[in-house]
C-alpha cells in the first residue's frame, strides 16, 4: 500500500522534529579522545625526532642549523591528525588539542617552529638536548667537586665504547 507508506514516512519526519544543532552559535563540546591540531611543547621536547620519523603525512621536519640549534618544524599543511606523534613522543611533549576549527587564510597560523638548544658531544660532534643528565643533577643540588674542569664525556651510547674512554672521566649516570 503506497498511501500507507507515505503516511508512515510523514509520521517519521514529524516525530523527529528539528534535529539540526545550533553549531557555530553554540559550540558543541568534543569527546575526550578527540584529536585536533597537535601542539608542541618546546620545554619538554628533547629533539629526538621520533615524531618526524613516524609521521605518516611527513609533516614534521627536524634539522640542525648549527651544532647548538636544532629546529623542529610542524608544517600543518596536510596533517591528518592521526595522533601518532603524540603517541610516540617519549616526553609527552605533543598534545592533540581540541582545536579543530583550523580554517585560516594563512598557513603560518597552523605552523609551529621549535628552536631547541642542544649540547654538543665533544667526542662525536653530534648535538643533543640541554640540560644534559649531568646538569640536571647539578640543578637538583648535587655537587661534583672533583670535577673541577669542565671536560666530561656526555652519555652517548651510540658512539662511545667504554674502553675508548681511557684517561677521561668515566661517568655512570642512570
Amino acid at each position, binding site marked *: 500500500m503506497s498511501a500507507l507508506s507515505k503516511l508512515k*514516512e510523514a509520521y*517519521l519526519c514529524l516525530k523527529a522534529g528539528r534535529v539540526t544543532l545550533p553549531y557555530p552559535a553554540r559550540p558543541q563540546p568534543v569527546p575526550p579522545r578527540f584529536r585536533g591540531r597537535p601542539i608542541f611543547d618546546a620545554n619538554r621536547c628533547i629533539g629526538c625526532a621520533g615524531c618526524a620519523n613516524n609521521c605518516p603525512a611527513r609533516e614534521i621536519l627536524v634539522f640542525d642549523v648549527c651544532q647548538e640549534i636544532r629546529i623542529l618544524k610542524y608544517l600543518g599543511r596536510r596533517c*591528518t*591528525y592521526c595522533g601518532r606523534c603524540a603517541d610516540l613522543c617519549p616526553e609527552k611533549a605533543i598534545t592533540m588539542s581540541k582545536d579543530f576549527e583550523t580554517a585560516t*587564510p594563512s598557513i603560518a597560523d597552523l605552523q609551529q617552529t621549535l628552536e631547541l638548544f642542544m649540547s654538543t658531544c665533544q667526542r662525536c660532534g653530534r648535538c643533543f638536548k640541554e640540560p644534559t643528565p649531568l646538569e640536571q643533577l647539578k640543578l637538583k643540588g648535587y655537587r661534583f667537586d672533583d670535577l673541577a674542569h669542565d671536560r666530561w664525556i656526555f652519555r652517548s651510547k651510540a658512539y662511545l665504547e667504554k674502553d675508548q674512554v681511557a684517561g677521561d672521566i668515566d661517568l655512570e649516570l642512570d
Partner: protein
Amino acid sequence: MASRDILHQLKQRFGAALPRANVAGLDRLYVFVTPEALKDVCQFIFRDLDARYIISIGADDRPYSGKFLVAHNFAFDARHVLCSVLTEVNANGGRPQVPSITEVVPPANWAEREFRDLVGIEPVGHRYPKRLVLPDGWPEGVHPLRKDVPHDFCPPDYDENRDFQFEAPPEGCVVVPFGPFHPTLDEPTHFRLYVEGETVRGCEYRGFMAHRGIEKLAETVLGYNDIPMMAERICGICGCVHNVAYAQAVENAAAIVVPPRAEYIRTIMLELERLHSHLLWVGLACHIVGFDTLFMQAFRIREPVMWMAEQISGNRKTYSLCVIGGVRWEITPELRTGLRQVLDKLEAEWQAVVAAVSRDRNLQRRTRGVGIATPELVKNAALIGPVARAAGVAMDCRRDHPYAAYDRVEFEVIVEHGGDVWSRVVVRMKEVFESIKIIRQCLDKMEPGPLQAEIKDELPPGRFGMSSVEAPRGESHHFVITGENNRPRRWRVRAPTYQNLQGIPAMIKDQQLADMTISLGSIDPCFSCTDRLEVVDIRNQQTHVWSQEELVRLARRKT
C-alpha cells in the same frame, strides 16, 4: 586441509608446470607457475574449480631476483581458501611479457591493463590493451611502480593538457558525456555513454583522475606503522576497512598473532562503519531518485553512530585504529553502555524506516528492473558485496574467509534474488540489523587482555600476505610482500569499486538514460576525489578559481 587439497589437485593436473608452492596455513596458498602454463592453470582454477577471481598484481622484483612478478589471486569461497598464482617473468631487458588470462578469466581485464601501465609488464593476448591508469599525455616507457622510478618523479615530456583518446561510438548512437563533474556523481570519473534515442547502448570508461600513488608511497617513503593511517585515506567511507585489511595482510605475512581483545575491537569498528555506510548509502540512493525525505531521515539516524565512533576513536570517520599487531583505542565500560544505547535507538528507528519504505511504490518504480546484474555477470565480472548478494550469490568474506572475531559471532548473510537496484536497497537495509547483532555479540564476548601484540624482531622480508575484509560495498583485498627498511616491498590494494565498476557497462546496457545515475549509484561507487570551485564566465570565456579566503567570505556573507 583445504589448501593442501587444492594444491594436490593442481599438482595432479599440471605436475611439471608448478616449480614450487607455499602452503601458508589452512586458508592461504601460494603457487608458483611457469609463464607458459599460467593461462591453463588460471582457467582450471576459475572454471573447473569454480574459484572467484580477486585481483592481479604486477611487481618489480628485479633488485631481489632479477625478474618481474605477476600474481593472480583467487578465492575459493566454499573451501575458505585464498589462493595466489604467482609467475616469475624474465626481465627481458626491461620489456617483460606475460601471457594474458583475460580470455579465460574475463574479470582480469582492468588489473592486467593496470600492471601494463604501472609496472610495464605486457599482457600478451589481451583483447583491449588500452591505457587505464596513466593519463594519455604520459610518455611511453615510463612505469611509475618500477623500483628505479622515484616516488615524486614527473617525466619532463609529460603533457598534462593532452586530451584523452576515446573510441568512436557505434553507428546510430550519439555520445552523452557523464562526468567528471555531474550533479549526481560525487567524485571525478568519466563515462562516455553511447545513446540511441533514450536508450544506452554502451559506454566507455575513463577514470583514475585522482590517482594518488599511495602504493608507491608505501613502498618508498612510509614505514609499516605509518601505512595504516595512509591506507585509511584510500576511501572516505570504508577507511577502517583498508586500515584493518592492511594490518591483517602484514600480520598474515609475518605470522603475528593479534590479541583477542584487539580482534573484537576491530570487529566492532568495522561493523560501526558498515552501519553508517549503509545508512548513508540508502539515503543517497533515495536522493538520486529524488526521494529526499528518506535521505534526510537516514542521515538523521546515522548521526548518533558517528558521534559514537567519535567517542571511541576521537574522530568521526578516520579512526586511525590499527597498528601492526593490534589496535590503538580501548573500548571502556562507559563506551560500552553508550554504544548499547545507540544501537537500541538505531534499531527501533531503522525498523520504522524500513516499514515505511518497503511498500513505497514510487521508490520501487524507479528501482525495480533497473541495473540488473545476473549471477553470470557476477561470475564473469567478479562482482562482490551487496551487488553480488542482491543477485542471489551468497558471498561474504566475513563468513567465507573469517578474520578478526567474525568466527566467534553469529550472523546471517542476506541474499536477495532480484539482481536489480531494489534488491540492493533491500540487502543493505537488512544488513543494518545484522551489524547491530554482531556488535552486541562482540560487546558481550569481549575478553580482557592487551591491545597490542609485542613485536620484538624486525618483520622478515620477502614474505607474502593476503587479507580480505568485507567492506560495506564489497570485499577489500590487500596483498603484501614484506621487505627491507621497515616497509613492504609491494602492497596492492583492491578496493571493492574496482571490480564492481567493471560490471557497470553490462548493467546499464539497453536501459533508459535516466536510470544511469541510480545504476551507477547502486554499486556505491567511490572514486577518490579532490575538488575546488571554478567559475567560468561564459560571456568573455574567463575562468576564475576561488581562493579559500574568498570562499570563506562568501559563505559568511548573509544571503
